[in-house]
Structures are given as C-alpha cells and as structure tokens.
C-alpha cells in the first residue's frame, strides 16, 4: 500500500515535493515530541532525585523512618500505603466492574445499555478533587458513623479492623479510589467481553448451559487474560491517584496493621510536602518518590497492555 501511494505521487509530473517534505517532517517532529516529553519527565525526575539516590541508595526503599528534621528518609510507609490502598480499591472495584460489564454485554436490555455506559463515562469525568470533597463531607461521616463501627463489632477480632476509628484512613482511601477506578475497569472489560466471539456463547447455549454457565465457560474463561489486563490498568490508575487520597487517607507515614488507621501514599506525600521541603536533600527525596511512583505506574501499564494486547489482537485492534 505504502509503495503504491508513493508510486502514484512520483508518477504525477509537476508536483512540488518540498512543501510535502516539510509538512511530513513537521508532523513527524510533533509526533516525536511524545518521545521528547517522556525523556523530559524521566530526565527531570532522575536529575532531581540524584542527590537522594546517592545519599540513601536502596536503603531508601526499605526503611520506614520519615524524619525531615533529622534528614532520615525511608519510603516504605508510602510504598506500603500506596500498595494497600490500591489493592483494597481493586478488591472492591474489580468484582463490581466485571459484574457491570457482564450485565452490559450479556443481558442488559438495549434501552438500558446506552444510559448505563454514559453514566459510567460521566463518573470518569468527575475530577479527583471533587471525589475528595465528597469523601470528606459525605462518605467519611457515613462510614465513620455506620459502617466502621459495624465492621469493628463484627470483625473487630481481626487486627485489620481494630483500633480507634478516625474516619479518614487506609480503608476510606481504598473505597474512594475504588469508586474512581470503576469507570476505567468497567469500560475496558466491557470492550473485552464484547470482543468475545458470539460463536463461543452459542456453542455453550447449544449444550444446554444456563446463562451463568455460558458466561463462566464461554465468556469469562475466554476473556480471562483481558480482564486481568483491565484490572492491572485500574491498578495503574489507583497507584497514581493523588488528590482524593490525600484528602481522606490521614497523611501519616506509618505502617499500621489496622485498615482504620491513617496512612500515606507516594503521591500524597509529594502533594503535601513538596512546596515546603526545606532542605535540598528533602526535595530530592520527594523527587525520588516521584521517580518510584513513575516506575511503578509504567510497569503496571506495560503489564496491563501485554495482557490486553494478547487478548484482543486476534479479533481486532482494540488495544487502546
């Protein structure tokens, strides 16, 4: 195809190719700006965090002391908080999202499908800071007054549900983030389920399977990889979520067993402490935290794409 086009172009006499070349290279430069941008991001983070890396080395990632006054920095509480809040969010969001996409692709009445899909899209458009606002004034009082006391009375014997109930804390952050990653997981898994060939379903129905059996055998097992990809994509979002988390997690750099206890994440420590980092090394440490965060999100994105690419490539180019 490419060959034929250039061939046509060359065959036409009198075509001035200089503007053509200029346009091509100009747009190429614009496209390549993405590469430059990625370089800018990584370069600035590496440059910013170099003093901290030199000073603390790998120790930084595995120590848990955070004491700016004595310049002792360990990122472990933030890594822990980020991982735990994101995993909580996934535990809540993945079943709900997959349930919703199964509903949408397998048996929702047509006149319900479009509105539900639009509503999910609208949920994705709500900014983080608004979820934070809603979290502080609506969700947290509700959780603190009704849900958490109940959890404590029923499951209080577990170490993860003991201790004073602040309202803000790890679990609240997990719930808010879950709400925020519902749309992405739902829409990606919906696309994946839609890419499952109808032949699969028909074959299972022909064997006399019930609707659930069709879904389980023909649809979900076929789409397993892609759904995992959707979940990992959601994880990527959850890890980098900043404002809403900062507003509800309690901002305390400590590793606590209880999910009621306040925590801290990589993103929210940057949000809170960046403008006031008083010493160069403190600032550099925050850059390093940014670098860690970037590394983790890039990694999850790549993993997600590997999953989804493997899933949808045979049936089309849906790997967005």
């Amino acid at each position, binding site marked *: 195809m490419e060959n034929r086009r250039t061939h046509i172009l060359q065959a036409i006499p009198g075509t001035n190719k200089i503007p053509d070349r200029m346009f091509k290279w100009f747009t190429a430069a614009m496209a390549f700006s993405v590469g430059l941008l990625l370089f800018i991001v990584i370069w600035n983070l590496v440059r*910013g965090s170099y003093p901290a890396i030199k000073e603390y080395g790998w120790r930084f990632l595995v120590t848990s002391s955070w004491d700016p006054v004595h310049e002792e920095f360990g990122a472990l509480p933030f890594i822990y908080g980020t991982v735990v809040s994101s995993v909580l969010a996934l535990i809540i969001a993945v079943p709900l999202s997959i349930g919703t996409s199964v509903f949408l692709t397998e048996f929702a009445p047509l006149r319900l499908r479009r509105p539900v899909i639009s509503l999910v899209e609208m949920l994705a458009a709500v900014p983080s800071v608004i979820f934070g606002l809603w979290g502080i*004034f609506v969700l947290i009082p509700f959780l603190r007054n009704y849900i958490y006391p109940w959890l404590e009375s029923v499951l209080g014997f577990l170490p993860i549900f003991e201790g004073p109930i602040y309202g803000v804390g790890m679990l609240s952050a997990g719930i808010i983030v879950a709400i925020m990653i519902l749309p992405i997981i739902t829409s990606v898994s919906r696309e994946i389920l839609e890419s499952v060939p109808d032949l699969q379903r028909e074959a299972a129905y022909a064997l006399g399977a019930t609707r659930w059996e069709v879904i389980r055998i023909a649809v979900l097992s076929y789409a397993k990889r892609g759904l995992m990809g959707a979940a990992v994509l959601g994880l990527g979002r959850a890890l980098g979520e900043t404002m809403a988390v900062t507003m509800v997690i309690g901002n305390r750099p400590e590793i606590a067993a209880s999910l009621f206890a306040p925590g801290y994440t990589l993103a929210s420590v940057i949000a809170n402490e960046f403008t006031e980092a008083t010493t160069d090394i403190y600032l550099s440490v925050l850059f390093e935290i940014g670098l860690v965060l970037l590394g983790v999100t890039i990694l999850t994105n790549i993993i997600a794409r590997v999953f989804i690419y493997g899933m949808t490539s045979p049936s089309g180019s849906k790997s967005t």
Partner: protein
Amino acid sequence: MQTSPAYDRYRKLKSTFISGLCVLSAVLVVAPLGFVFFHLLSEGISSIDLNFLLNLPAPVGEKGGGMANAIVGTLILLGLASAVGIPFGVLGGVYLSEYGNAHFNRVIRFMADILNGVPSIVWGIVVYALIVVPMKGFSALSGGVVLGFMMIPLILRTTEEVLLLVPRDYREAALALGIPKWKTTVFIVMKTAFRGIVSSVLLAQARVAGETAPLLFTAFGNRYWAQSLDQPIAALPLQIFNYAISPYDEWHQQAWAGALVLILMILFINFGIRTIINIGSNK
C-alpha cells in the same frame, strides 16, 4: 454430569442469582455518581450566587466573597494548555495516521500510552523542575504548560484513531488528481475528520480541566486576579482543595459551589459541545 431435575433447578437458580449480582453491581457502580451529583447540586446550588461568580475571595473567616478569579484562572489555564497541547497532539496524530511506518508508530503509541499513565502529581514536579525553578517563581505559564503536556498524548492517540476512520479511497482519489500529499492530508483527510479531531481536543480539555495535583507546584493559586502569565494564578480545583480541607463552614459551602461550577464546565466541554457539533452535522 448430573442431570436430575433437582440439579437443573439448582443450576437455574444459581444462574439467576449471579445475574442478580451483576445487576446489583451495575447499580453500585452508578450509585456513587448519583450521590456525588446529588450532593453537588444540593450543597452547591444554595451557595452559588452572583457574589460567588463575580467577587474575589474574602479574607479568612469573613463572610461573602467568591471565586471569580479561580473560574477565570481555570479558563486561562485551559487556553494556555490548548495552545501547547493541540498543535503537538493533532499534528503528531496526523503523522502517525498519514506517514508513520508501523514500527515508528508502535514506538510513539507506546510512549504516548506510558505518558497517559504518568500520575498527575509527577507531571507537577517535572514542570516545577523544568519551568518554575528556572523562572524563579510559580506562574500561570507553568500551570498551562503542565496541563498542555498532559493533553499531548491524549490528543495524539485519539486524533490518530479518528483520522484512520477516513476511508483510504479519499486519499487515493485526491492523490490521483495530482493534489500534493500535504494538501490531501489537510484539506481532505483532516477536513473529513474535523469533528472527530475537535471532540478529541475537547475530551482532552475536559480531562485536564479538573486536574489539581499538577497545579499545586506550578499555578500555585492566587487570591487576586493574575496580572500576567509569569505570576501565580488561581484555579478552581486548587481553590476547592484549599477550601475543602479548611475548617470554615463558609468555605466548605464555597468549595461545593466551586465543585458544581467545575463539574458543569467539564460536562459542558465533554458532552455539550459534542452534542452541538453532532446537531450541526445532521442538518
């Protein structure tokens, strides 16, 4: 496999039960949206008045005041961001769809996807190091640039997709007529996909309009009107954040009002303009 009637009933029951769970999860997914909007409307509407829309913030602890500067600030930041994001994003997308070879495109797409996944707070510290430190000050410019950077990969990916929807025949017909490739691209391909390009731009604008984290260390916030682009500037999301974590009831109300204005702005960009374009095209 067992086939007794009792077992069949069990299978049917289980199927119905799990279908019910799926319906329930759909309800639970949509419910938060309902609650968020309910509270935004009920809390926000009572606090929005002309005062809120036209005045500057009042001193701490005093009544009255508004967010006029933050509303305008967000529009200015969006304008700046578009000036950065649109040319790079759209023309980059043009290259991918019209010129790029498969290998190059895959690399660019991959990098764009990675950039789309970069947490917004990370963009903030990058632009702080890139612009705020050399310019020795927080500024509207740096806030616009950070949002613009975030728009580039978004627009690039969607523009490429809408351009690929333009039938290949159009291009070949134009080239066959002796029209240079760049003219074909601009006047035939981009023109045909124009509505698609506009909505990809609008979607990107809607995405960045509510961003708060990258503005913390760039636009920084300002309780007055920004005098020039090298000064800090107010933005709605920043103001909402500051007011939400404050103890003042008055400010909480203003945060709700600001949130309502912000979400209406985003929904307007997101859905409103798209609808207008669709109607325009159906005539």
